């Protein structure tokens, strides 16, 4: 690096710099620009409205309801996924027959495309023909069909169920990779000191998994905030907007109502929320460790 002249350095960095400018910076600044305008493509003019779209957002009951639903979805889904994934990873980290086969099978849900996953669960949850009702009726848990997607809060939880089914394997594999990187010597030393399994898990496994947990938690949280395909294929945000996640609301505003100005405002707010949450994770998980 020391041998490179300033000119050569600039020449080498320029393509990446330009790429970042055009692919990231320009769209972001253009979004900010649009969000300051009444930008509906069906209107002949797109006047500058200042922060009117941002003020509208504070008065928009659908936005607040979507945000509340999204936060519930993210917290519940990611918590369940992380907990389940940890259990699965710990299990798959043991030495037993068929472990490799189980690891492969585990990845199947994650390999299913999102839209296919949504359509599959739509039919599984179907109140009249769905396999879930059939199964529960056959084993006598329920006496009549349940309208899984017929009530807003129940539908939201069923959507979380579908999300957990699909996303848990990915986190499990990430955690498993982290588990395998922990030197066995630590556990052996702890055993000599008389530590039981729980102590070993709390004092060795969890602290050493922090970097991987940060990656898994950040990625899943970001992806959960961005959830769109599942809502689109499974519920379309209903009933009664009970599953209207923020990203789906942005889609409706932008591409259905064609209100690009307000859609850009909502997108920027979602970006800021995700950024803040990721920074908080970083602060609490990684900085503490450093």
């Amino acid at each position, binding site marked *: 690096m020391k041998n490179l002249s300033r000119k050569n350095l600039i020449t080498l960095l320029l393509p990446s710099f330009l790429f970042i400018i055009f692919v990231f910076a320009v769209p972001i600044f253009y979004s900010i620009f649009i969000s300051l305008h009444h930008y*509906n493509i069906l209107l002949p003019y797109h006047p500058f409205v200042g922060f009117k779209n941002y003020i509208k957002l504070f008065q928009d009951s659908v936005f607040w309801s979507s945000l509340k639903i999204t936060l519930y979805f993210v917290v519940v889904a990611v918590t369940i996924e992380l907990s389940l994934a940890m259990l699965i990873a710990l299990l798959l980290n043991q030495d037993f027959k068929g472990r490799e086969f189980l690891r492969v099978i585990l990845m199947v849900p994650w390999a299913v495309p999102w839209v296919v996953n949504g359509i599959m669960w739509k039919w599984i949850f179907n*109140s009249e023909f769905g396999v879930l009702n059939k199964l529960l009726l056959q084993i006598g848990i329920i006496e009549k069909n349940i*309208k899984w997607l017929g009530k807003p809060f129940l539908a939201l939880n069923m959507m979380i169920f579908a999300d957990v089914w699909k996303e848990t394997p990915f986190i499990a594999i990430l955690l498993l990779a982290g588990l395998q990187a922990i030197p066995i010597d630590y556990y052996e030393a702890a055993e000599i000191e008389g530590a039981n399994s729980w102590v070993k898990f709390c004092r060795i496994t969890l602290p050493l998994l922090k970097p991987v947990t940060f990656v898994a938690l950040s990625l899943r949280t970001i992806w959960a905030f961005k959830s769109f395909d599942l809502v689109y294929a499974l519920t379309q945000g209903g009933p009664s907007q009970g599953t209207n996640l923020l990203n789906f609301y942005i889609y409706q505003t932008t591409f259905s109502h064609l209100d690009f100005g307000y859609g850009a405002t909502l997108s920027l707010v979602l970006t800021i929320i995700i950024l803040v949450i990721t920074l908080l994770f970083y602060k609490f998980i990684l900085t503490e460790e450093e």
Partner: protein
Amino acid sequence: MKKTLFLTLILVLTFCLSMGAVTLKMLVRPDEGGVIELYTKEFEKLTGVKVVVDYIGWDQISIKTTTALMHKGGGYDIIFIPSAEKSRFAAMGQFVDLNEWFTEDEKNEFLKSFVDYYSHEGQWIGVPWYSGGAHFVYNEKYFQDANVNPEDLSTWQDVLNASKAIVEKSNAEYAFTPSCKYPGNYYYNYGTILLAMGGQFFDENLNPVFNTGIGVEALELLVEGVNQGVFNPAGVSLDDYETLKIFQAGKSAFMINSTWSANQAMLPEASTVADYAKVRMIPGGKNSETGGLIYGGAFGITKASQYKEEAVELVKLLTGTEAQMMHAISGFNLPTRNSLFEGSRLEAINKAWPVYGELVAQVEVGSFGPDVVWLDPFRRALATAVQDAISGKKTAKEALDWAARQAIDIKSQYE
């Protein structure tokens, strides 16, 4: 050197040949009955013009078309215009005025109501291709089991009363499963019941009126049916295809569904109740017509098209008498040409499609939904209101008042 020269020659020849060929690009919804496929091939044979058709599913066509129109037609010469999108596609100003390409006689061959609907600010922007609407399809056996004569049902209160008897005395789990999942499902739930009862969405100044009088009564009837256990509450999460499947499986005694679905209910290979599925006019109010919501599809030609003449010829072929007749018989879509509602052609379609006459009668008394550019966001608010009322989150009046406030707000954003 020789190799390079040879390759250059090939490239130049290919370029010259491609410059001479005319290629039409078309954006359209899925090909029901294979009519587009057949007639575009015939057009290619007759004219030597190549036709590239992009078939886009119903769930994506709105966005695909919108983005195409935002970019001067997106390279398409012919674009399909569903009736529900007519106003907003027209507002984007990318379609030619067809009055310049069709003679008055040619124009008069189409149903006037459809030509009028596909006119925008004095310009005719879409050649009507097919028509359709909401229909009342019922299971004759269930009605007989309950000793209910379907012809005696003149009001929706009669329907509600009969529904109780049907659920008690027949094998139907529910009398009716409304489709209320998508905004566009207003054809098959509250929207059609409102119109059939003689109500309307907006007054002449586009102020909401659906949250008063008949409007509230119509939704209260739906809610009452759900509360009494005769209308299926799961309808809030079901679309029109799913409610068709429920009817075909013999779980519902009647359905309000599309022209295509009405036919599917009668197909032995698709329906377990094919022998009992019948159609009657949608019951109405005390002194009203029995028309529900209707819909249609048309072809528009983009201003940016370089081959308008060829595009017009293709549209004429696709919306011609023979193509529309085939579209009716194999695609189960009602036509838009006057000649297909009379004489020998009417008989021919009737022969292949026995309920054709009844379906036509229903569409003849129906009306299009609100002709506004903000129809989609309005329908979305209305869908939420219907779901809120059915799921008991709000009363019918509260839900409709909320939708009315939304409608006023949405409308103001386009002024």
